[in-house]
């Protein structure tokens, strides 16, 4: 069973890993300043928040839901943190309040989706606007730049003597937890079941509504955490932080092999997708291509990779059917011989 699981993981993840290796190789050789410890750690740091957002997003998409409001909750969390700090609330308390607020935001999403049976795409489209809007109401166009040292140090420093930025640490700690939950616990199994067929899951005793609700709450919580990290890293809290993040996050999850139809995919592929997208953005940035321009590469990557995987799948299916038809024909010719022998 382990072997099977590993084999299935190897397919798409292996493919992404190979591309990543190729890109890395190319960049080390052809792009100046790429292969320096500084650049690599900056590249990683730049994706600290998106990396955190990936984790609950992957789980949600596997469960056939989606959360477009992740960046907005992040921004709102950032705003609340800034306001609390400006009001001289001690940092630990402020962080707790922010995390709670994020969880509440997620709970609103969860409530609308489970209680009213509304499609999560539209609900989170609405809350995407709502949460960011609340952020604007609270802070306007201003920003809070005076942050406690503990926070800014966290945002800038590396861990000890390594090149690992502190901002990556939350992700590095949470990632194995999420992987374990998804692959090795009953919850993870139920998440896959809901994505595979929500009706069957329900009829099999899975508390679908409850699980969905808590997935959204977890997402909100993680977004708030990402908001804290973002604020620390950029040293400011603004309502328009992280605009457009949700697209990158969803892109990475889908690129990582998680099917938009639910029930399929795993986090290993998503991590490779994360590495790949981070590398590409970094390389393009070093080559003087702006954020929007980088979108060309990312967009193409997403579309082409899925096209490719579909074509491969179609090919495999065709081969399989042809083989089946051949065996059927052979089997039938056997029986017709028998019939002929019996003189029917």
């Amino acid at each position, binding site marked *: *069973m*382990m072997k099977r699981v590993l084999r299935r993981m190897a397919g798409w993840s292996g493919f992404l890993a190979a591309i990543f290796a190729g890109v890395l190789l190319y960049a080390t050789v052809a792009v100046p300043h790429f292969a320096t410890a500084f650049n690599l750690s900056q590249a990683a740091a730049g994706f600290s928040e998106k990396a955190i957002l990936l984790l609950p997003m992957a789980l949600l998409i596997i469960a056939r839901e989606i959360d477009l409001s992740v960046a907005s909750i992040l921004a709102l969390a950032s705003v609340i943190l800034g306001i609390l700090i400006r009001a001289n609330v001690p940092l630990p308390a402020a962080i707790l309040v922010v995390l709670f607020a994020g969880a509440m935001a997620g709970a609103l999403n969860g409530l*609308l989706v489970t209680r*009213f*049976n*509304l*499609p999560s*795409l*539209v609900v989170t*489209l*609405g*809350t*995407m*606007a*709502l*949460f*960011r*809007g*609340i952020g604007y*109401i609270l802070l*306007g166009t201003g920003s809070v730049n005076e942050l406690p040292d503990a926070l800014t140090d966290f945002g800038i420093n590396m861990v000890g003597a390594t090149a690992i930025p502190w901002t990556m640490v939350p992700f590095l700690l949470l990632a194995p937890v999420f992987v*374990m939950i998804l692959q*090795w*616990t*009953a919850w993870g*199994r*139920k998440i*896959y*079941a809901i994505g*595979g*067929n929500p*009706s*069957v899951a*329900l*009829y099999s*005793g*899975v*508390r679908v*509504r409850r699980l969905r609700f808590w997935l959204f709450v977890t997402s909100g919580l993680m977004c708030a955490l990402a908001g804290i990290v973002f604020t620390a890293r950029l040293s400011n809290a603004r*309502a328009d932080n992280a605009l457009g993040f949700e*697209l990158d996050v969803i*892109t990475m999850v889908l690129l990582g092999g998680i099917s*938009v139809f639910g*029930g399929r995919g795993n986090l290993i592929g998503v991590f490779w997708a994360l590495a790949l997208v981070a590398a590409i953005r970094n390389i393009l940035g070093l080559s003087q291509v702006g954020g*929007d*321009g980088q*979108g*060309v590469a*990312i*967009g193409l990557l*997403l*579309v082409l990779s*899925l*096209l490719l995987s*579909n*074509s491969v799948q*179609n090919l495999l299916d065709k081969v399989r059917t042809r083989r*089946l038809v051949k*065996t*059927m024909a052979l089997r039938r010719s056997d029986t017709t011989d028998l019939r002929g022998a019996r003189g029917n």
Partner: protein
Amino acid sequence: MSGFASNFTSQPNDGTDAEVHEIIAGLRSVTKSFGGTLAVDDVSFDLRAGEVLALLGENGAGKSTCVKLLAGVYQPDQGHVFLEGRPLDLRSPVAAHHHGIAVMHQHPGLFDDLSIAENMFITHVRRDNWGLLDHSGMSREARNLLEAVGLLVDPDQPLSRLRTSERQLVEIAKALAVDARVLIMDEPTAALSRREVDRLFKVVDGLRERQVAMMFVSHRMEEIYRIADRVAVLRDGKLVAVTPVSEMPHDRAVQLMVGRPLSDIYPALHAKFGDMVLRVQGLTRSGVFENISFTLKRGEILGFAGLVGSGRTEIARVLFGVDHATSGSIHIGEQQTSFRSPADAMNAGLAYVSEDRIGQSLIMDFGILTNGSLPIIHQATEFGIIRSRRELGLVKPDLERLRLRFRSFEQPVNTLSGGNQQKVVLSKWLATTPRVIIFDEPTQGIDVQTKAEVHAVIADLARQGIGIILISSELPELVSMCHRVLVLREGLISAEFERNEVSQEKIMYAATGIAAGQHGLRFGSESAAESSVSGRVCQQVASCDEPAAAPSRQSIARVFLHHVFTRRELGLLVAIAAVMIPVSAMNPRMVSSSNLVALSMDGALLFIVAVAQMLVLITRNIDLSVASVIGLAAYVSADALRDYPGLNIALALALASAVGLVCGLVNGLVVTFGRVPAIVVTLGTLALYRGLDSLIAHGKQISADQVPAAWLDLTSRSFFGLPGVAILAAGVLLVFAFALRYLSVGRELFAIGSNPDGARLIGIKVQTRVLGAFACAGLLAGFDGALWASRYATIDARVASGFELTVIAAVVVGGVAIRGGSGTIVGVAFGCLTLLVIRNGLTLVRVDPLWLQAVYGLVILIAITIDALVGARRRLVGRKR
């Protein structure tokens, strides 16, 4: 069973023995297999003019496949369908229609979002002299045809309002609309009451006179004997007999279907029962079933009989916690329980083996082990982590006991045969060690061998002291497998029989409406049953009628409010007024001409791209890239004008539209032929097109003085006081509203979104239409980009960034369903206006524009919540399945 045959062997068949009717159509040596299973093996039979051939066979014998072969849904692997002596290659159901073969499908592929009339004529639409769809004509014809089958409903309402038996009648009427030479009826009476069946048979008699060749597939022996001239029996995909009906008494038919004496496939039942394990009292679910009371003892097998739609599965669902009862009580053992979910029911010791294997019992792509362990997966964990050995230990014993044949535990269940799949389902439930098991059609679609095994398992479980409820439509199964049988009819218990007094005929009569006079029957007279021809339980159950239909006791305000919430356009109008009136009071500028002009211009720009989004949404897709297309087209056209000031304005417009068209085509091609989901594709192209825009612009912007004045005037020109661009938008509205209503292409888009598989089945070119929708959307977005560039003068690469949110908001608020199939142009127009009026209103009362985001978000949430509540209420009211 013995007395049964003698009533029906002396059926008078006028001249069938003497004259041979002309052979019209049939199958010749047809073989068809599906992925390794032989469904039909070298089958040949004829359908003759003015004659009804009944096709008998067990579930899984191949009846459905024969129907679908004749209907053009499947193509034979070997052999052929023939018509009037010549072989026919039916590539699709439309081809079958064109040759005059009409089919009443058992599970009709109908389009819920289209009207009843449209559904009936979807494959052969009626047109007027201009070549446009003649909706009023079709409506009239539909009404006549529906009357002929006894369904008195308004043909212009959406199909979704009808319940199962009514839908079956529509399917029948639909087949009659074709004016066929050959009529195939696949279980047409499954959900019909006695009276409706009589109606159908009268129609069949009429067709007999018109020399139509007919085939009738059914389980119901009584009906077969009433209507058929000849009988063909299928078993395991082979034709085992074709004889005149007089030569096929009931016993012989059953024996041929089953292949061995009946006594063999049903195990012996024990007779020792234990304590009461389940007690149900007065269980009611309004509009579905009423006052259901029964008890179940340990070790007892209680059968639930009744027609489809009589409430059996619905009761099971309430027992299992999927649905909730409106009143009544359920006791498990000694305790009264009320389950909020299947998880609760499971914990109390209930198990439900659903009739819908694919939809409710097994996740088809997942493996045997994963499916089998799902209900009790937490038992396989140690400190929260799943241990493979434990998981196997939970599932293996039962699978072995049931003698499942499989390759490995990881094998996806969709590679197993129906019978083996059912074994996996059984083992899954046995692993939960239940006290009560509800089996819902457990042997449906299974081969005879496995059926016997399943029956043996059920008997064995009863012997072990488990209480069993057996829901079945197979009369022999009910008679032979149950200690007691409850018969349901239209939501009420109509009869109860002990083992020693039960018979197939008694069950049938109790299920179809001739009163058996037992307890529970509220209205035993035929007339009361007749008065519910459109069959709602409404007469007894309150609150069934829609408020609008109720007498004038309802206050005008109530009625008005009801309409406001159910008719989107009206609701939005009210919302717009609700904003405009107070704002105008505070700031009269709201209604000043300059403000209204600006509003209409913004509205026009939003509306045009909202129409684009709507086209894509109704086909069950989405286009997230519209805003990026606007930006790209805007920049390209403005750029062209900057570099070539002499360029004709019209050409610049065309250029922008062309850019949009190409973008749309790319989207469409990847979605249709690349088979990548639209949300993913357009997410990618959103970034791609915006990126291209950024690369082209190179960080520079185009300002108003760099483009010809004529370009800027394009959108500011007024005609008769109205801005040109608003008139343009109005034109777009008229054109698309017209196209979506009166052109086939338009209606097909709705059909595709409502039921993509059904659309494909009837020959709609789904790929081309969806591609067209995306291309059109792109074109509109590109065109809008040009208008944008003209209106907002200063153009950079960030034009319309984030605008996709506003567009989707406008469309959703305007009532277009995200899941596809429904929406109106007018609704979209109102949606756009609502959003813009709100923005305008907020600005004019000096609310911080930053608040706008939050307000938009709130508006979207309110709109979809209202939709959900209205939809739920509509389902509750007047819908009995």
